[in-house]
């Protein structure tokens, strides 16, 4: 897009650029006035070349002319492009119309300047350079939205094409038609230096034009790379947001599970209460009262466990195991659970509700993982180890590959189309409770998750602090 409206909208003070453009146009128009003495220097150089027979002076004169023409063209071009883009003119115009309009304006400015100040200009090379520059402008500005980069390329294009003016072999194609260039070329022929001028002109034209296209390509490629980096960053941000959202969903799921778990003691309370109402015996009433008390305590523990994440209690390991077993759905006949609990397990100091939820997550993973055997076998071993206990969950699922293993702790990553929150949550909770979690897996053989929880003794927690907690 030649219009580049998007970029123009982003600029806060387009009037500054507009003023700059007008200033450049004025400077370009008045350029012959400022450069008059240099023009006269060209005449002197030509005279010296003829008198001394040294074609080097002609090359120098040609370089002067080329620089003067190029500078004026570049200034007018820059000024016009700034005015065209920062004025409201180009709104609603198609790119080709803007191209044509800019071309006409710059040609008119050149022509007017040459008529007013009687300094000749080179229409053919100027128009050709303009067409190429405007073409590159369209490609480059559409990609980079940078005037500086566009102007760097254009400068090279103008320098390249104005060098063609000094080549006598290009005279039939109306290059170098101004009287001063014609004089230089005639002097070149007179000094038998026409080949030198031809070679010099081409030797400058070629590198400049190649450089212009290479620079343009580099700028475009750089801009594309930047755009890709920006897009990647945006994608990463989006993924991060999605993960955060997933995490929030997980929290919601956890709360939902809690509410579900709370239903169990509530059902008990309601049932017992109805029995109490229908019962006449005091013994039964006392028994039901105790059971109601237990349910209320259980529900209170659950709520406390969630409300106070850091709170921990000294509990018997078997109590934790029973709590987990009570919450785990084991109705599926295709899943065979083998639970091996060692006798005399030490007491542990944990947030029972949260640790239970973490272990349930691990067990749920073992339940849902696909398997190749006829039935799913899950071995759960609870044993005493040095300074604590280990809960080992072993399944006969398809296992986890090395590449997946590196990412299992990432929030949102899942190989089973789940939320990908289970393991990160379990790890966090276990580590919050001074424990560790390890995973070992072999493809097609299964996965083993080992959870270590420290014993109360190893933590050296006295009863007083326990009570306080």
């Amino acid at each position, binding site marked *: 897009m030649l219009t580049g409206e998007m970029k123009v909208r982003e600029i806060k003070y387009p009037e500054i650029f507009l003023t700059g453009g007008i200033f450049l146009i004025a400077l370009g128009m008045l350029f012959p006035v400022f450069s*008059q003495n240099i*023009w*006269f220097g*060209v*005449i002197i150089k*030509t*005279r010296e070349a*003829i*008198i001394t027979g040294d074609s080097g002076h002609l090359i120098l004169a040609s370089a002067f002319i080329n620089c003067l023409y190029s500078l004026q063209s570049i200034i007018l071009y820059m000024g016009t492009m700034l005015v065209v883009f920062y004025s409201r003119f180009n709104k609603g*115009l*198609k790119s*080709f*119309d803007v191209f*044509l*309009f800019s*071309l*006409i304006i710059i*040609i*008119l400015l050149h*022509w007017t300047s040459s008529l007013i100040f*009687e*300094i*000749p200009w080179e*229409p*053919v090379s100027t*128009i050709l350079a303009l067409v190429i520059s405007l073409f590159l402008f369209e490609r480059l500005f559409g990609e980079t939205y940078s005037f500086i980069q566009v102007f760097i390329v254009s400068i090279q294009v103008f320098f390249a094409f104005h060098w063609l003016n000094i080549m006598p072999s290009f*005279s039939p194609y*109306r290059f170098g*038609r*101004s*009287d*001063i*260039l*014609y*004089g*230089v070329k*005639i*002097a070149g*022929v*007179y000094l*038998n230096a026409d080949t030198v001028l031809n070679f010099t002109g081409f030797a400058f034209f070629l590198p400049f034009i190649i450089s212009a296209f290479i620079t343009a390509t580099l700028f475009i490629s750089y801009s594309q790379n930047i755009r890709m980096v920006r897009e990647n960053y945006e994608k990463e941000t989006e993924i991060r947001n999605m993960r955060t959202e997933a995490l929030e969903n997980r929290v919601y799921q956890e709360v939902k599970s809690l509410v579900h778990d709370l239903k169990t003691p509530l059902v008990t309370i309601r049932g017992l209460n109805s029995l109490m109402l229908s019962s006449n015996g005091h013994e039964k009433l006392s028994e039901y009262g105790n059971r109601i008390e237990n349910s209320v305590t259980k529900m209170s523990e659950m709520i406390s466990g969630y409300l106070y994440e850091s709170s921990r209690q000294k509990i018997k390991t078997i109590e934790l195991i029973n709590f987990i077993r009570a919450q785990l759905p084991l109705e599926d006949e295709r899943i065979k659970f083998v639970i091996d609990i060692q006798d005399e397990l030490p007491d542990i100091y944990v947030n029972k509700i949260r640790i239970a939820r973490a272990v349930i997550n691990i067990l749920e993973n073992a339940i849902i993982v696909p398997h190749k055997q006829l039935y799913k076998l899950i071995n759960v071993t609870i044993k005493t180890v040095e300074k604590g206990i280990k809960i080992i969950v072993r399944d006969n699922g398809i296992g986890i590959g090395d590449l997946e293993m590196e990412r299992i702790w990432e929030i949102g990553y899942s190989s089973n189309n789940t939320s990908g929150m289970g393991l990160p949550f379990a790890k966090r909770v276990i580590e919050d409770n001074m424990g560790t979690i390890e995973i070992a897996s072999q493809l097609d053989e299964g996965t083993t998750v080992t959870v270590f929880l420290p014993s109360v003794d190893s933590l050296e927690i006295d009863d007083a602090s326990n009570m306080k907690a």
Partner: protein
Amino acid sequence: MKHRVFRAALLLVFAALLVLINMPFEEKSRPIVFTLPGLPRPIAKTPVVITSAGQSTDTYIIHDITNQLMIRSFFMPQAEDTDLEDVETVVFTVGYSSLGAKYRDISYEEEIKRVKRLLEKAKEDKLTVLVVVLGGDHADSNKTETLLRLVGAQADYLIGLRESSNEIILTELAEDGNIPLTLVNSVNDISGSFASAFR
């Protein structure tokens, strides 16, 4: 529809500009003209004043040729009629350069007047007038043509470049005024023809 009209207008303006500023696309027909390679006998005497009609840098080339031929000459690009005292020949190098005129601080009209004064003086003193035109096809061709027609009408010998835009004008001038004309292929060939006017 509006866009199309606007684009058509832009294209028209662009085409008009190309015609106006630059390209007289029509090619002047150039019949093959046979001319003498040089004069059969000299017509000019020394000393010579070399001047410019249009202030182009071509004058320096004629000056250099004169020096190489060791012809006694005075190089005066802006010679006035008073400078023609005690000289036998005046050589005009025709070619208008707007930049050259600015460098010499003289306008085109003033240049025309100066050339006219020189021609009158040359006529009065019966000086030999040699006219050399090296340029052609450049941007100020019309002004050069005016100067060439002005000077060429009173010339005793015309030298120009073959296959330049001035070839036809030189031929016309030579035919109309019965003036000897030499058309050379290249600037390097002028030296021989120029020398034939003196030796």
